[in-house]
């Protein structure tokens, strides 16, 4: 299973407001808020802590 995270930059504020998650084997797209209580965000932080890097936001 391949997991991919991409930072999403909101065009007005030009700040990252969520993280887009996709993974092989499923057609689901997740838009994850940067909130500590959100368990998807916690999984993302754990994924980063393992040495992984998200795809940068589009410029």
């Amino acid at each position, binding site marked *: 299973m391949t997991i991919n995270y991409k930072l999403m930059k909101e065009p007005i504020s030009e700040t990252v407001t969520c993280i887009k998650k996709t993974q092989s084997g499923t057609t689901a797209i*997740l*838009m994850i808020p940067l909130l500590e209580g959100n368990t998807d965000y916690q999984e993302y932080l754990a994924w980063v802590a393992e040495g992984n890097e998200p795809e940068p936001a589009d410029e």
Partner: protein
Amino acid sequence: MSRARDNANLSPTIPDARMPNLTGDVTTVEGAVATTIANDAVDSQHYAAGSIDGEHIANDAVDSQHYAAGSIDNEHLADDAVGTDELANDVVINTSGAITTTGTATFSGDLVPSTPLSHRNMIINGAMQICQRATTTAPTPKGADDNGYYMADRWRLQSGGTTPARYNLIQVNSGLAGLPKAHQVDCTTTASPPGSDDYIILTQRIEGFNLQQVEFGYPTAKPITLSFWAKGTAGTYVVELYDGYNSLAACQQFTVTTSWQRFEATFPARTSGGVVNDASNGLEVNFWLLAGAAFGGGTYAANTWRTHTNINRAVGISNSGAGVAESTSHEFFFTGVQLELGSNATPFEHRSYGDELARCQRYYWRLVDKSESHPVGDGHYYWSDQIRGTIRFPVTMRDGPTIEQSSVSDNWRIYRNGDQDRFEDFTLRAASRYGLSWYCNSNVSGTAGHAGHVESTDGTGYLAFNAEL
């Protein structure tokens, strides 16, 4: 004269049926008569019915010193002999046993129970009625590395290790009166024997806010009782309470047959290790269906809080830990899950469907479920190539949720200015527990300032909001 001779002479001098003459003629001196009347000498044949009544017994003459413990029992009391007139106010029935009646109990005063009469069940969707995501995972069974929520609301599959085992999770008709739905785990790929670090668990994570009544960590801590119905291919499994904050766990084995049984397990009060009081994971109820040696190779201690050690978590699962994964013909069913205060399992607490759904929606809300032209809300063109909108949740969610959606081209559209504009997904701008704002700046074209309403197109996609634990 010896006392024996007194007794021998006295008894014959009292003729039968002459006891009424004793009234007023015999002066009883404390201790004197008691030693001169043989046991059973004065029985119902020696006094007329009704002759020994309230007029002949001084107040308080017969007290606990004059009858043996237990001598006044149901056989010696007529029906209704002890009524409210015979009982003092505020009488206390002092018993440590159970009180059972086949009649109706009526209280004119307040009923003050030690455990709540309503809102008892700390489990949400214990009856497996709510399935917002899907009622089956078929044709794509789940297994290793599938950690998440796939079928019944609030029931999370936790799976790990290298196991090839796969299962379909299915909502089925149970055939149980009052609990019409059940959660089935149907093995499609075996893992027997399992790898050491393999595990399959069905879990409900309980929010800390909803656990404060257990009073763990205080001297007044209360025991809690888990009850559930289960059946399946005959075998032994383990149910566990796991407190990650305090690194404590307690477990109980249970053995199912092909017939439904109700299982009960009481876990002791815990005066140390308080329950976290926030919206995070306060306690997990884990049904272990497969456990490799790393989780089942230790020692078993029923219903005992122990420091969490993986090797002790699921000891005793059948088929060397393979459990339901031993054969593709194996299956496991459960429903009616209830966790409540106290040492006794009460009948399953039925809540209304709407109430149960709202409780589930605090954690997951599916707004559009593969239905055509399903409304999402209003939107507007902020720029000519960007639309924006907001969505309010039906209940306050546990935390700001993730937007979960299917990746389907042109799955959404906005009707504006006499036409429609199709787009693929919603990107999160900001989320709170109450609602969120979204935008889309991909493949949209319109006039800044125009507004419209947003809906699904062909009914193949879905849109949901996930704040699960």
